[in-house]
């Protein structure tokens, strides 16, 4: 039973078509990465999932039912642009947002305290929101989206502006929530995080679906023609004829092989030559990274 299903959804603003016949499906207990360059229609798609806008055509279903506003009580949303009442105290703010999601005040208060502890921001509870650092505000916003224990969690760029410690804390929380069977959709530009976290991805560009499927499955569609070598010594082996393109980041070579029948053999040949002139501490043959797939799929044309 999919948690979210968009079917052939289209949305146009004036003359500009933001979303072109998009279909995606998110299953419970999975993390779904919605990727795409800026202005590709990610936010427009998300806004239709949560009823802020209505599609011109196509259908949106939540929890296997046609879209209805009351279903939104089971959805938690963290928008890309963070918004909180600046003058409000943190705890009042959380209780207020929880109540809007249908919680009673007492439950909202209890859960707010529990979440603040889990997010390690108990010292922020009595403060006004405007007194907090940006990272702390982000965590408050994160809590606000989760307070009503939604079954669908939608997060637009959840990790932007967080330091690595806090980003990891949020990541681990999301992984825990997935284990509890929640469906999580997040959109981001940070491909390394998507690669690490997401089970399924959809890449959209210009409002159209360019690429979608399970993470492993998408990657296996690409040949294992990337080689990474960490070395010390001469880099003359990078002139090997099987190499289409090579970048050397001071002892970290990233190599793209020429198309051939047996990339694996080409990689071994390069390694054999490298050993003769340098000390190798790491050698890996792999598929292109998600970042490369992304750039290739959108044709390197990323506006802004």
């Amino acid at each position: 039973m999919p948690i979210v299903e968009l079917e052939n959804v289209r949305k146009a603003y004036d003359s500009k078509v933001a979303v072109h016949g998009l279909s995606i499906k998110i299953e419970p207990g999975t993390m779904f990465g919605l990727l795409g360059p800026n202005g590709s229609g990610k936010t427009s798609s998300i806004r239709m999932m949560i009823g802020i806008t209505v599609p011109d055509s196509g259908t949106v279903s939540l929890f296997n039912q046609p879209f209805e506003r009351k279903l939104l009580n089971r959805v938690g949303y963290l928008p890309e642009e963070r918004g909180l009442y600046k003058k409000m105290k943190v705890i009042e703010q959380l209780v207020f947002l929880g109540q809007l999601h249908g919680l009673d005040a007492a439950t909202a208060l209890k859960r707010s305290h529990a979440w603040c502890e889990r997010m390690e921001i108990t010292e922020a509870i009595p403060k006004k929101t405007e007194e907090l650092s940006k990272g702390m505000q982000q965590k408050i916003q994160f809590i606000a989206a989760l307070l009503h224990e939604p079954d669908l969690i939608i997060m637009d760029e959840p990790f932007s502006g967080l330091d690595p410690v806090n980003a990891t804390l949020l990541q681990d929380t999301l992984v825990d929530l997935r284990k509890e069977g929640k469906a999580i959709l997040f959109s981001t530009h940070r491909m390394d995080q998507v690669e690490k976290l997401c089970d399924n991805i959809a890449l959209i560009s210009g409002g159209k679906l360019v690429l979608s499927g399970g993470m492993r499955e998408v990657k296996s569609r690409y040949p294992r023609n990337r080689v990474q070598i960490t070395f010390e010594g001469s880099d003359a082996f990078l002139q090997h004829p099987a190499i289409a393109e090579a970048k050397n980041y001071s002892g970290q070579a990233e190599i793209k092989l020429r198309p051939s029948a047996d990339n694996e053999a080409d990689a071994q040949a390069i390694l054999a030559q490298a050993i003769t002139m340098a000390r190798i501490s790491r050698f890996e043959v792999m598929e292109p990274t998600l970042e490369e797939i992304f750039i290739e799929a959108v044709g390197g044309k990323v506006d802004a």
Partner: protein
Amino acid sequence: MHNIWLIAKREYLERIRARAFMIMTILIPVLIAGLIFGSVLINGKRGNSSRIAVVTPDAQFGTDLQSELQSDKDRKISVEVISPAVATTRTTLNEQLKGKDLDGYLWVTDPAPGQKRPTFEWVPKSQADITTKGDIAQAVRRVLTREGLTHSGMGASDVDALLAPIDLDSSQAGKSDSAVAAFGIAYTGFFLMYLVIVQYCMNVGRSILEDKTSRIFEVLLVSVRPSELFVGKVLGVGSVGLTQVGIWFIAAAVAMQFGLLSSGTKLPVTASQAIFFVIFFLLGFILYSSIGSAFAAMTSSQQELQQMNTFLMMPIIACSAIIFRVVTDSDGPIALVFSFIPFCTPLIMFTRIAVHQPPAWQIALAIADLILTILAVLWVATRIYRVGILMYGKRPNLPEILRWLKYS
């Protein structure tokens, strides 16, 4: 409904707790008192003491005019009579005008052959000083009348009796102070409503813009409909306004109870005046704040909003321009017409009711008219609002806004 209540409550509490609320609660009565006492003070004492000269070939006329002008108790005019004029008189007087020793001089020339009256030339220091000019014209007329009456053989005491000022006594109607009190209430109520509507409708606009720029709307719109947000905000801010007015009423009542207001000043506010104040404040506030909200949703900075609000202020300013006519002639054509212009109805109709209860059908018609306008404005405003709060950047032009109305 629950969401509207939550949003209104949040808005209300945040505003009531803010320091600005306390400051405005104290400041506005002080401001209104200042305005009213100020205008009473200025109107009561027309101009301060002034000094003029009268140049006339007829010395008797000069002294008569002098005593006539100096008998006016409301203002102090010192009059210097120059009779007859010498060759240098005019230049000396002109110098004195420039040196600001003199506020003006009256130059009287004997009647030309074939004419009965002398000619009068008034040379003021400032052309704008129309009250002094009016006073002098009246005094001259009185002196001429007196002269004419004496001339035709009437005794001085008879003339005095005839020209004595008349005291119009309106106390016989059994409501001695009520006319003055009604004026006071009309003025106070007008300024109070004026300030409160302007202040709170700007507050709604500002608060919507704040929420738009802080992107809180994106979060709220998952759980709240735009219309609920809109209504909650207007109700929350409006209740703050009512609370403020309530505090003033209670404070005034308490002050009177303890005789803190000067003795004899009673504020005999009738129940119907209080009720109509609340009704018209609420309707006016809803009308203006709906437009203000749409404006706020269209803009993305406080400066832009301020420019838009100028349009909003125009009908209110028009009301204050005609308020004197409305108070003095509450059933006259100007009062009648303006009380049916929806944007002026709250202020003008309330003022008319405070001065003198107009026919019930007029009140009913004005309220119906106002409510219909509010519904029409709300229809447009909520549509602009719904789209506008999620649009950032460039201010939309008119065709774009018209398209917004059609969005679902």
